[in-house]
């Protein structure tokens, strides 16, 4: 074969798109709205070539309930109680976000007991939420046992919440001017008992999943989201921190008692699934630290300063406040034209903004990587649709 022929052949081969050498064809698959690893009614339209993901198109709206519209027809007390239906795993943080903006708008006061209780229960719920995430994450990787471990330990905490708050999942507790009930007399003892059980189990979690070579293989270098991309795609919370951006509103703009407790913000370095996993595992330990500092230092006082029956009036204006839920920045915007009902309410939800990272990180990977990425973003679908 002379050089010219070889060059021509080479050129011809190069001209072929690499995928078509085998004569393969792209095809579309619907992942969801009923799919075990979308954890809710998220639908992803996948363009695949064999196992390789070429494009991910999220399709939303399967659980859109128009919460923002309903809020326009509610008064300032009622709208707080809709928020637990958004991110049901951070119901208390959602309550708090709405409460915070209403309190700011109506210039309502709180005392240190109220703030301590709010910080304590919200931090407990961060652990609660991460426990569920950990179990589900294991299941998405194909290991069933973590799911049961996570739920077993979460159940203890759910019981703790039930004694004080009454609810087990969609909890309504934090409201403008205070909290709905005082904490249960046994709460501190219950939480201490929980921590005594849970701290060694957290090490067990690490032994079961984190140290497993298959888990490491499946997560390291998969779904890399650079710091720049994470910020550009509006990601917040553990997803953003795993990409190496130490942004946590609990530190950046301390609310509640976060300014008075010592804790670290875990940060990843590569932004892959493993970093997102590791950041959440460390966050659980940091939350335990915060809870331990608060437990014995809940100040005495009233648990509400404004009577729950009192009407709340807000002068015209625009208010925005945000806080850090287990998944990222939850913002609440309130537009008032005066009176007892808001003119417009908008919630900036962490999941809506975190979701889009999947469109860039999952392309080029396998279907199994997509599942790992989705799970590492820790999405709660009702929070996306609102």
């Amino acid at each position, binding site marked *: 074969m002379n050089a010219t022929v070889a060059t021509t052949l080479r050129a011809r081969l190069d001209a072929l798109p690499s995928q078509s050498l085998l004569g393969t064809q792209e095809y579309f698959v619907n992942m969801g709205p009923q799919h075990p690893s979308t954890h809710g009614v998220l639908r992803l339209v996948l363009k695949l070539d064999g196992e390789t993901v070429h494009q991910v198109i999220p399709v939303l709206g399967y659980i859109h309930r128009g919460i923002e519209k309903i809020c326009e027809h509610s008064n300032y007390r009622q709208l707080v109680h809709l928020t637990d239906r958004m991110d049901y795993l951070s119901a208390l943080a959602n309550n708090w976000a709405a409460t915070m903006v209403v309190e*700011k708008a109506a210039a309502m006061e709180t005392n240190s007991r109220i703030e301590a209780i709010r910080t304590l229960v919200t931090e407990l719920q961060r652990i609660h939420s991460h426990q569920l995430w950990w179990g589900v994450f294991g299941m998405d990787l194909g290991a069933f046992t973590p799911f049961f471990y996570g739920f077993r330990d979460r159940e203890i905490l759910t019981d703790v919440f039930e004694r004080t708050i009454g609810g087990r999942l969609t909890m309504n507790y934090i409201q403008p001017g205070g909290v709905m009930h005082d904490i249960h007399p046994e709460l501190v003892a219950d939480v201490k008992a929980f921590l005594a059980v849970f701290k060694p189990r957290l090490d067990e979690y690490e032994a079961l999943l984190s140290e497993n070579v298959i888990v490491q293989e499946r997560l390291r270098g998969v779904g890399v989201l650079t710091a720049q991309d994470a910020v550009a795609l509006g990601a917040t919370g553990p997803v953003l921190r795993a*990409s190496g951006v*130490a942004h946590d509103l609990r530190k950046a703009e301390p609310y509640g008692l976060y300014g008075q407790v010592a804790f670290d913000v875990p940060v990843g370095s590569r932004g892959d699934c493993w970093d997102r996993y590791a950041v959440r595992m460390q966050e659980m330990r940091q939350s335990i630290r915060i809870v331990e500092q608060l437990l014995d230092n809940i100040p005495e006082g009233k648990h509400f300063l404004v009577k729950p029956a009192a009407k709340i009036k807000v002068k015209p204006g625009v*208010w925005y406040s945000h806080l850090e839920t287990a998944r990222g920045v939850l913002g609440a915007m309130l537009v008032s034209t005066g009176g007892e009902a808001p003119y417009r309410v908008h919630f900036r939800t962490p999941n809506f903004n975190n979701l889009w990272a999947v469109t860039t990180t999952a392309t080029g990977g396998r279907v199994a990587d997509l599942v790992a990425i989705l799970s590492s973003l820790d999405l709660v679908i009702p929070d996306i649709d609102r």
Partner: protein
Amino acid sequence: MATSLLPVSGQALDAQSLVAKIQKLCPAAQLRPDCDRPAVKVPLAHWPVLAQQLFASADLLFDLLETHTAIDWVQTGQIELVYVLTSLQCGHHLTVFVDVARDNPVAPSLCAVWPIAQWQEREVFDLFGVHYTDHPDLRRLFLDDDWQGFPLRKDYADDFMLERPS
């Protein structure tokens, strides 16, 4: 605490100097006083240029479009677009209000500056009917493609809505 990969290259500005800075970049921008956080009102024509400057200008560096939504002022015939910006690099934040006409709501897309705007704008399009020029994929986000009307507008009504007892 590990160091942040994103360089902290700026100083957080207080509300006054922030607004002053923005008014220097865009003299048409006005302070909006009824907000709890630094907020400016920008005429639509100046907004795309200012957005680019807010993102790139060395002492502003608004890298995160925290949220984008709209307010329907049915009385004045305006839809007010709201952009909540945060600078993770500097630590300050800003809210920008832009008015578009309610009967012909057209605004420039900011996807090129903040990629997340693509989906936030789709949400506003879906619920308020604001059309974004140069948007790569302007479709309904939550509602069906054949849905009639824009539910977050104040005058929205459909057959399924119940009369509220007054």
